C-alpha cells in the first residue's frame, strides 16, 4: 500500500514536470531524458552490487553481534558506534541504506540506525574528503562539520524517546 503511494507520488511528479518540460518546446524534454539515461547507466550497476553485497553481509554477520554492538539496549554508546560506522561507510545511498536496513533486520535498534543514517548523511568521511573539502574548502567544511557533530546522537536519543513513548501509550 505504502509502496504504491510512494510510486504514485514519484510518477505523478515525473508526469507534471515532464509536461512542463515538453511544453517548452526547446529541447528541455529530450535533454532531461538524456540526463536520466546517463544517470541510470551510472546507478544501475551500483544498485545491483550494493543490494547483493548488503544481503550477503547480513547473512554472514551473526545477529547476536549486531544486537550487542548497535542493538536497542546499547544506549548512547551504541549511538556513538552507529554514528562512527555511518561516518566511515563509503559509497552512495544504495549501499548505506542497504547496510542500514540489513542491520535493522538482524538486531540493530531503531535509534541506532537513525543515528547511522544521519551520520552517513551529515559527515560521511569518504564524501567529505573526496568532494566537500576540495570543492567547498577546508574552513567552511570544518565549520559545518563542527556544528553537525552531535546531531546523529541527538536524533538517535529522540528516536529512542519516541519509541519508549509509543510503547507506553501503545
Amino acid at each position, binding site marked *: 500500500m505504502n509502496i504504491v503511494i510512494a510510486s504514485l507520488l514519484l510518477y505523478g511528479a515525473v508526469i507534471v514536470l515532464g509536461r512542463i518540460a515538453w511544453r517548452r518546446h526547446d529541447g528541455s524534454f529530450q535533454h532531461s531524458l538524456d540526463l536520466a539515461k546517463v544517470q541510470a547507466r551510472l546507478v544501475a*550497476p551500483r*544498485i*545491483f552490487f550494493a543490494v547483493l553485497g548488503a*544481503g550477503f553481509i547480513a547473512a554472514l554477520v551473526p545477529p547476536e553481534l549486531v544486537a550487542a554492538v548497535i542493538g536497542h539496549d546499547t544506549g548512547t554508546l551504541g549511538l556513538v558506534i552507529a554514528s562512527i560506522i555511518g561516518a566511515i561507510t563509503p559509497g552512495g545511498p544504495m549501499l548505506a*541504506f542497504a547496510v542500514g536496513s540489513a542491520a535493522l533486520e538482524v538486531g540493530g535498534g531503531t535509534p541506532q540506525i537513525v543515528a547511522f543514517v544521519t551520520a552517513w548523511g551529515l559527515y560521511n568521511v569518504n564524501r567529505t574528503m573526496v568532494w566537500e573539502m576540495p570543492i*567547498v574548502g577546508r574552513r567552511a567544511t570544518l565549520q559545518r562539520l563542527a556544528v553537525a557533530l552531535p546531531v546523529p546522537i541527538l*536524533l538517535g536519543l529522540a528516536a529512542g524517546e*519516541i519509541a519508549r513513548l509509543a510503547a507506553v501509550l501503545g
Partner: protein
Amino acid sequence: MPDHPRAGRRPKGDVGLLVVALVAITAGALCYVLRGPEVFFATFGDDLRLLLSILPKVLAGVLLSGLLTVLLPQDKVARWMGARSGLRGLVLAGLAGALLPGGPMMAFPLTVALGVAGADIGTATAFIAGWSLLNLNRTLVWEMSFFAHDFVYLRYGLSLLVPVLLGLAARLIFARSKAKGSAAENEARNESGAE
C-alpha cells in the same frame, strides 16, 4: 587535491563501483563457503526480488532528477537564494537542499555558487544539511525502497528542523561569516527596495 579543486569531475567514479562490487563478490563467496549453498541461494533470491521491487522507483528517480536538473538551473537557484538571508534564507536553503536532485557533484559546487552569490556559512550549512538529510529524491527512491516506511517517517520527521537549526548554529558560532551575512542582508534589502 585542494590545489586544483575542479580537476576531475568524478574523482572516485568507477573506483567506488569497483569497491562495492568487490565487497559484494567477497561477501557472496564467504557466504557460500561459510553458510553453505542453501543460505547463499536463498539470500541471492531475496536480493533479486528486492532489486525487482526497487526497479520502477529507480526509473522514476532518474527521470525526476533529469527533469529537475533541466527545469531548475543551478546558477539561477544560486543567484536567487544567495541574496536571501535571515531565517527565511535558512528555510529556503534547507528546502532547496531537499528538492534539488543530484549527488555530491551537484550539491557542493552549488554550495560554492551560493557563497559567490552572497550566502553566508549559515545558509551553506542549511543547504548541505537539507541535501544530506531531507533530499526527497534520495528518500523516495532509495530510503523507502530499503527501509520500512515507519522508519523513514521517523527519521525524516526528526530531521525536519535540523537544517535550519544547524544553519543558525553555524551563523552564531562562526562570527567571521556574520559580516558576510549582513552584507547579503544589505544586498537583499537593496534588491527589495528596487522592486
